[in-house]
């Protein structure tokens, strides 16, 4: 049986991420909800994994650099069958458990120990170079936050990728417009960000990061140059009382919020 479509999977990623946050009382909920569509399209449509072999190793490489959204990645991996869902629900952010708030390398499908920003893209460049050396025709995807592009290491790696013309490297920038101390963005913020990638020989595609058709198209395309997908997203997407809210980064939910949160998530899906 083929897995359900990416829209349905995105909802499942959101629901499971929310369940994990509710169970463990953890924060970064908005970060995870915001990238659910990107992950659903990647893990269930774009990255060539055999849908009949849900436990098979992922063929393309996916690196979550904004690892504070780790609960979404773990949820996608659980839905994909790469890790055990029951164990994830039992052990996420629990004393002695197998899964922490930032996914760590060693968990199947988790390529880097995340939580320190600006590490993903340099590692992705290394992986893409190795694939080129070994003539492996696979893509390397790196998902990072827009705030994360403050880190100098992002641009050091971007320059190298551009210089080498790593055409099978795709950097996805989760452009939700929020970061830690939440600054007001300049009107031309996104154009300037895009032009910085272009200046280092990247191709930039700007899309709605919740539009699955646009994601499919953008994530599959690109030849000759590394590609940056500037994906505009809404932090907390799918949970109306968190959508677009700065505090969705810091706020945690308590067990008594459970019904309200899950109902709101369900209703928002129906409305959409």
């Amino acid at each position, binding site marked *: 049986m083929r897995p359900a479509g990416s829209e349905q999977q995105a909802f499942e990623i959101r629901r499971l991420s929310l369940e994990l946050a509710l169970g*463990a009382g*953890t924060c970064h909920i908005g970060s995870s909800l915001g990238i659910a569509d990107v992950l659903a399209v990647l893990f269930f449509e774009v990255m060539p994994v055999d849908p009949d072999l849900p436990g098979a190793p992922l063929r393309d490489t996916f690196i979550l650099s904004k*690892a504070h959204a780790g609960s979404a990645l773990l949820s996608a991996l659980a839905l994909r069958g790469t890790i055990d869902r029951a164990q994830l629900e039992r*052990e996420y*952010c*629990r*004393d*002695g*458990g*197998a*899964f*922490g*708030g*930032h996914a*760590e390398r*060693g968990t199947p499908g988790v390529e880097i*120990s*995340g*939580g*320190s*920003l*600006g590490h993903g893209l340099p590692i992705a460049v290394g992986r893409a170079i190795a694939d080129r050396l070994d003539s492996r025709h696979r893509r390397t995807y790196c998902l990072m936050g827009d*705030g*994360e592009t*403050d*880190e*100098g290491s992002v641009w050091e790696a971007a320059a190298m990728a551009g210089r080498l013309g790593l055409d099978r490297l795709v950097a996805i920038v989760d452009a939700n417009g929020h*970061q*830690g*101390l*939440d*600054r007001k963005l300049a009107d031309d913020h996104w154009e300037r960000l895009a032009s910085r990638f272009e200046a280092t020989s990247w191709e930039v595609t700007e899309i709605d990061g919740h539009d699955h058709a646009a994601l499919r198209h953008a994530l599959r395309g690109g030849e000759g140059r590394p590609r940056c997908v500037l994906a505009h997203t809404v932090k907390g997407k799918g949970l109306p009382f968190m959508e677009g809210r700065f505090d969705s980064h*810091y706020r945690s939910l308590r067990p008594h919020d459970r019904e309200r949160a899950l109902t709101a998530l369900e209703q928002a899906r129906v409305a959409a």
Partner: protein
Amino acid sequence: MRDAFAAALTEAAARDERLCLVLADLGVGVFDDFERLAPERIFNAGIAEQAMVGVAAGLAQAGRRAVAYSIAPFIASRAHDQVRVDVAAGAANVTLVGVGGGVAYGYLGLTHHAIEDLATMRAMPNMTVLAPCDPADARGATLAALSLDGPVYLRLGKNGEPPLLAPGTSFRIGRATRVRHGRDLTLASTGPILASAIGAAELLARDGIDAAVLHLGTVKPLDTDAIDEALADTGMILTVEEHSVIGGLGGAIAEHAAQTGAGRVVRAGFPDRFVHEVGGRDHILARHGLDAAGVAARALSALGVEPPRSSPVGAGGLR
């Protein structure tokens, strides 16, 4: 401790108009008072720790005093080269504040733990290294750091630590604080894990072991007089730290004792491995024998004492 630090910082900023604060996109709500007092002296470098530390060094070169603040590993590891060249070698008036020292950010994992920071910071010439133990101590350490000439690394816990020192205890850079007298051995600790040392001394007392407790709010320069005295009085120091056993407080005291040849030093801390254990701080400390029971058990084994069957230490301490 974080709020005590922020309050002391704001007080210092009110007195010293040169004082500037540089952030790396962390500290929501922590610096609201500073922001009200002097919004023109607070700067956010963005998620860019190396730039934050470099900017602080530049401000200091121009005659300012600068404080850079982030989660401990993002100061001590991420910006290491800027700390070394721009701050330490430059002997800049920069106070580097690392919040969440040790494993205070438990569940957030190894990228958010700092268990090598005391070692790397201590190895830097010119650097003063402070690790206060409770909110009042953090306040004292902050004010001391901000009136010292030269670079300081100030390692804090998070928030909500209980008071551990007697009210009115003053913080003096380079001076250890005797928390408890004892004859049989000295438990020497730094930072909020002093709570485990105090708890261990209480457990040991039930087994008839009289442990002294020494708090070293300054890791560098080391209070060698206090170390010499502790070794002379008790013959043995068991160091207790939320840090690798390599290069931190245990390393510093062992280096000193090896030179003088006086007494024995045993180190309790994280072994030479990254902490992959998922859990809150208390869980991680207990799993590494760094809770009160674990420290007491370590003390008994160092003393060559078999824990009595009835002892709470014997019942659950040894792992």
